[in-house]
C-alpha cells in the first residue's frame, strides 16, 4: 500500500443503522492504478456494503456507524461531497435497467455531465467520446428502454466513464447477461484496466472473471476478508463448494474428499414412466405438445416459428439461448399466457385456445425470475392457498396441499411470516411451494438461479429437483453448467426457432452451433465431454474428481 495508490481502504467497518451486527468488519486493502481486483463471496457477505462505502453512498445515503478511512488518489473521502467522490469513483450497479435514467442513450451518457453543469459542447464531446470508446456510438440516438441487456450494460458504463473516474466499481455486471454478452463485457473490463483504470469488480461468476486474469482476488465471508491475493491462491484458500472455480480445479480437489452422494431427480416419476430415451412411449406421456407453433405481436416481426416438440413425463429440460431468442415467449405459450398465431399447443390433450390460463395452471406451474413479482399475501400460508383457491379446490384439499407444500420446501416454521420479510432464498422457496400447492405436474422456472451465489444455487436446484411433486421440470437459463448438471434434455432456442433438441450430450457437444447461438461452453462442459467415454453421463465437477 502506497500513498499513491488509486484506492486505499484502511480498517473500514460499518453497521447499518436499522440492522443488528456489523455488515463489514476491519476491511483493509489497496488497489493500484490499472489494477483489476475481483471481489467475491456469498450473498450477504458484505460486498455491496463495501462498494457503497467506497463510492460514498455510505454514510451519505445509507446511515449507520462507519469507522476507518477511505482514500482516493491519496485524498480522504470523509467529509467529501458525493458529487466530488462521483468524479473519482464510477459505479455500475447490478441492474442496468434501474440505473439508466435517460430516455435516449445520449441523454443517459450525458446525465452526470449535465449535473456537473459543464458547457453543452463539452458534454456532447465527452459523451460521444465515451460511446465511441465502447464501440457503441451507433446507439447514440436509440431509446434506452428498447436496448438489449448487453447494450444497456455498455450504455450504463459509458455514462460512468464520461465522468472520467480513476476508479471503477462494477457490482455484478454479468448477472443479467447471456454468456456471449458477458464475455464481451469482461473483455471490455480487461481493456479498461489495461489502459490505466483501477477496477474493482464484484461478481459471483468467479470462473468467468478468472479468464480475464484479475491482478488479485478478494474473497469475503461474513463481512470479513477471508482471502486477498493472487488468483492462483484463491483456488487453494477457499472451499470449492462456495466459489465457482474452473472444473478441473474442483475435480482435482474433490478427488481427495469422499465422493458426493448420487442424487435421484424427479422422485415422483416412477422408472419406466419417463419417456426420455424411449420414443415409442413418447406420445402417451406427452404432457404438453407444440404443433408447428408460430407467434408474433400485432405489428412486429415473428418471434417464434415452426416450433414442434413435446414435454414428457420425466423430462428435466434446460432451455438455452441468447437474450431475445424467444425462450420466454415459448414458455408463455406452454402456460397459455400467449396463444399461437398459427399452429397449436396442447396441454394434457386440450388446445390452449380453448382453455383458460387458470385451467392450464393445474398442469403447468410457472415460477418467475423474481419472487417479488408474485408475492403479496400477509402470511406464507395465505400465499400458498391463493393458487388452489383460484382453481376452486375444496377447503380441506387446500389445507392439506398447503401443509404438504410447506413441508416439502422446509418452511413449516415460517407459515405465519410475511413472505416479503423472508430472505431472497426463502422467497424463492415460497414461490416454488405456491406452485406445488396447486398440484401442477410441470414446474417451469425462468432463470431460477440468476443473481444467487454458487453454493446457494446448487443447494436450491438440488432441493427443487428432488421434490416429489412434479412429473417434469423445465427451466430457462443462461448457465450452461445448469444444463450439464441437472438436465436430461436441452432445447437450444435462437432466432425464434428450436435449433437443437436432445440429450445434453448430443446438443452440447456441437460447439459451433452453441457459439452460433451465443452460448459459451464452460470448463465443466469441456471436462465432461473429455471424460464422457469413461463416464457415459454428464456429472458435476466434484463427482468427476473421482473418475479422473
Amino acid at each position, binding site marked *: 500500500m502506497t500513498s499513491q495508490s488509486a484506492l486505499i481502504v484502511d480498517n473500514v467497518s460499518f453497521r447499518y443503522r436499522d440492522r443488528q451486527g456489523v455488515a463489514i468488519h476491519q476491511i483493509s486493502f489497496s488497489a493500484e492504478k490499472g489494477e483489476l481486483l475481483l471481489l467475491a463471496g456469498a450473498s450477504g457477505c458484505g460486498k455491496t456494503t463495501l462498494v457503497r462505502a467506497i*463510492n460514498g*453512498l455510505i454514510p*451519505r445515503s445509507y446511515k449507520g456507524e462507519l469507522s476507518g478511512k477511505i482514500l482516493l488518489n491519496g485524498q480522504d473521502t470523509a467529509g467529501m*461531497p*458525493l*458529487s466530488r467522490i*462521483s*468524479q473519482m469513483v*464510477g*459505479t455500475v*450497479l*447490478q*441492474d442496468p435497467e*434501474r*440505473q*439508466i*435514467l*435517460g*430516455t*435516449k442513450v445520449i*441523454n443517459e451518457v*450525458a*446525465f*452526470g455531465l*449535465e*449535473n*456537473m*453543469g*459543464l458547457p*453543452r459542447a463539452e*458534454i*456532447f464531446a465527452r459523451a460521444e467520446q465515451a460511446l465511441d470508446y465502447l464501440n457503441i456510438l451507433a446507439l447514440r440516438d436509440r431509446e*434506452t*428502454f428498447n436496448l438489449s441487456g448487453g447494450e444497456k450494460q455498455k450504455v450504463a458504463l459509458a*455514462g*460512468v466513464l464520461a*465522468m472520467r473516474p480513476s476508479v471503477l466499481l462494477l457490482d455484478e455486471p454479468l448477472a443479467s447477461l447471456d454468456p456471449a454478452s458477458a464475455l464481451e463485457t469482461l473483455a471490455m473490463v480487461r481493456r479498461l484496466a489495461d489502459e490505466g483504470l483501477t477496477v474493482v469488480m464484484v461478481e459471483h461468476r468467479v470462473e468467468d472473471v478468472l479468464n480475464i486474469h484479475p491482478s488479485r482476488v478478494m474473497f469475503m465471508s461474513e463481512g470479513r476478508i477471508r482471502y486477498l491475493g493472487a488468483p492462483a491462491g484463491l483456488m487453494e484458500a477457499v472451499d470449492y463448494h462456495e466459489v465457482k472455480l474452473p472444473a478441473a480445479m474442483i475435480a482435482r480437489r474433490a478427488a481427495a474428499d469422499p465422493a458426493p452422494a448420487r442424487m435421484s431427480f424427479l422422485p415422483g416419476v416412477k422408472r419406466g414412466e419417463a419417456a426420455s430415451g424411449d420414443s415409442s412411449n413418447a406420445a402417451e406421456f406427452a404432457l404438453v405438445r407444440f404443433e408447428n407453433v408460430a407467434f408474433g405481436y400485432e405489428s412486429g416481426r415473428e418471434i417464434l416459428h415452426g416450433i414442434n416438440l413435446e414435454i414428457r413425463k420425466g423430462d428435466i429440460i434446460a432451455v438455452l439461448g441468447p437474450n431475445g431468442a424467444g425462450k420466454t415467449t415459448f414458455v408463455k405459450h406452454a402456460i397459455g*399466457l400467449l396463444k399461437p398465431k398459427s399452429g397449436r399447443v396442447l396441454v394434457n390433450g386440450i388446445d390452449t385456445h380453448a382453455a*383458460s*390460463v*387458470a385451467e392450464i*395452471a393445474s398442469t*403447468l*406451474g*410457472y415460477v*418467475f425470475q*423474481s419472487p*417479488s*413479482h*408474485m*408475492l*403479496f*399475501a400477509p402470511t406464507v400460508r395465505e400465499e400458498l392457498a*391463493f*393458487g388452489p383457491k*383460484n*382453481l376452486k379446490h375444496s377447503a380441506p384439499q387446500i389445507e392439506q396441499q398447503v401443509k404438504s407444500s410447506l413441508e416439502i420446501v422446509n418452511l413449516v416454521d415460517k407459515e405465519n411470516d410475511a413472505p416479503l420479510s423472508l430472505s431472497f432464498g426463502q422467497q424463492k422457496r415460497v414461490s416454488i411451494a*405456491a*406452485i406445488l400447492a*396447486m398440484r401442477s405436474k410441470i414446474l417451469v422456472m425462468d432463470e431460477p438461479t440468476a443473481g444467487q451465489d454458487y453454493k446457494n444455487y446448487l443447494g436450491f436446484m438440488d432441493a427443487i429437483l428432488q421434490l416429489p411433486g412434479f412429473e417434469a421440470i423445465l427451466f430457462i437459463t443462461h448457465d450452461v453448467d445448469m444444463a450439464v448438471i441437472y438436465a436430461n434434455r436441452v432445447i437450444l432456442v435462437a432466432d425464434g426457432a428450436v435449433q437443437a433438441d436432445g440429450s445434453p450430450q448430443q446438443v452440447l457437444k456441437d460447439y459451433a452451433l452453441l457459439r452460433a447461438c451465443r452460448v459459451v461452453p464452460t470448463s465443466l462442459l469441456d471436462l465432461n465431454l473429455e471424460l464422457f467415454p469413461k463416464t457415459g453421463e454428464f456429472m458435476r465437477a466434484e463427482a468427476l474428481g473421482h473418475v479422473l
Partner: protein
Amino acid sequence: MLVAWRYRKRKSLVQWFDPRAWVIFYLCFLFSTLAFWDIRLLAPFFTIALFWLLTSGLQWSEIRRPFLFIGSFVIFFSLLTFLTGRGSQELYKVEHLIRSYAAPFTLLGWRPTLNITVERAFFAVSQFVRVFSIAVMTILIPYSLNPAYYGITFRGLGLPDKIAYAMDLTMRFIPTFGRDFQLTMDAQRARGYELEKISGGLIEQVRKLGPIIVPVTIHAIIGSEDIIDAMDLRAFGIGPRTWLEELHYQRRDFVLIGIGIVILVTSVLVGFAGLGNFWVPEALIRWAVGG
C-alpha cells in the same frame, strides 16, 4: 407491450411549435374551457380542439382506442346526468318538462319516473362538448410532445431543475413500470387469478386487486432505491445543471402564446361579467311549454 410511446415525429401543426409554447396554449385553453357552461361559448373551444386534432397528422387507427375509451366515458357520464338530473341542479333552478315516462310498476310504493326536461337535455349536451374539448387536447399531448423534451420543457416554463427532471424520469420509467405490471399480471394469472372475474362492491374489488397492486408497489419501491443511488452517484442535485437539449422560441411561438393569453384573459373577463353560465335557448323552452 403494455406501455408504448405514442410519440412519433410527424408533419403536424402542433409539432411545428416549441413544446413550451404549446403547453402554455394548452393551459390557457384548459382554464378558459373550465370557465364556461354556455354552449355558445363552448362551441368555439370545441372547434379549436378539433382544429388541432385534424392538423395533428394522427391516423384514426393510432388514436382509436383512447378515443373510444374516453368517448364512452364522457357519453356515459353525460347520459347519467341526463337520466338522473344529479350534478346539474346547481346550474339551473327551474326545469321545463318535455315528456315524462313512468314505470308501470312500483318499488315499495315508489314509481320510477324519467323526466325529460329542456335543462337536463341541454346540460348533457353542454357537458359533453366541454369535457370532450378538453379530452381531445389532452390526448394530443403523448402523441405530439417528444418525451425527451419533457424535462427541458418544464424547466423552460420556470420549474426548478429537480422537479423538471422528475418529469423526465417519470417518462423514462413508465415503460419499466408497465413491464413490471405485465410480469405480475402474468405471474398471478399463472396461479389461476382472473382479473376479469373480479366481483363484489368497490372495497371488495380493490381488496381483490391486492395480488397485483402489492407486488407492483413493492417492486417499484425496491427499484426506486437503485434509481436514487444511480442519481446520487452521478452528482444529481449538486447545483444548477446544464440541459443537453436546447429549445429556442420562434416568432410563431410568441404568436401562439399570445393567442392563448388573449383567450384566457377574455374568458376571465367574460366570466367576471357574469356571462358564460349555463344557457338554454328560449325557443326550446317555449316549444316545451307549448308542447
